[in-house]
């Protein structure tokens, strides 16, 4: 769980455009313990977040700048980034 803690959430590429923000600090309830929980909670925050997270298959995540999975556990103070599949090179 995320005990009494804030998370810094970052958005990149079209997730940033849809969410309408590059960064936000959120304080999810204690029931949010994993990346998947956080996505489900963020999706309910408003229409922009709902649009950003509409297609879960196109969402990738990093926690504290390491690639993460839906089941990755979150801790207070974590930096959680959401982005589409990468297209560098």
């Amino acid at each position, binding site marked *: 769980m995320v005990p009494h803690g804030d998370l810094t959430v970052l958005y990149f590429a079209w997730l940033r455009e849809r969410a309408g923000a590059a960064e936000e600090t959120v304080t999810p309830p204690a029931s949010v313990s994993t990346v998947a929980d956080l996505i489900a909670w963020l999706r309910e925050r408003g229409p922009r977040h709902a649009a950003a997270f509409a297609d879960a298959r196109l969402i990738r995540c990093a926690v504290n700048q390491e690639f993460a999975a839906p089941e990755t556990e979150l801790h207070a103070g974590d930096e959680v980034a959401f982005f589409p599949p990468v*297209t560098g090179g």
Partner: protein
Amino acid sequence: MATVRVQTDDFDVGAEFAALTAGRHDIGGIGCFVGTVRDGANRLAALTLEQYPGMTGQALARIVAEAERRFSLLGCTVIHRHGRLSPGANIVLVIVAAGHREPALDATHFLIDWLKTSAPFWKKEEYADGTAAWVDARESDDAAAARWARAG
């Protein structure tokens, strides 16, 4: 000692090549790849590459360290640009130096495949008609990178 840079500025392939090989007599093969902004349909105005400051540089350094270990490289330079680039502009440079041609060519291929699928960059195309679109990831790129995972 590898050189890894994420920058907005262009790079000079000749200068980077010279810096990597100066004074070295132990190198037998050098592989080089330059990725550029392609405008196949002649409708692209610009390509913007977005990065994740902090994570992108670390991810590149980790991929380069893996290549150095796996192919016993004698030198390696990876430079990846971000920001708004014009058609024809350089995007990415990979130069690897090894004892022989095979590890040099294999490491070049390995690095560019992994950069495509694992480096946190996102491309947005702006078109001459004023519209824009984010580039979709290609399954063929994932398949190319997966070959290396299987090769272990």
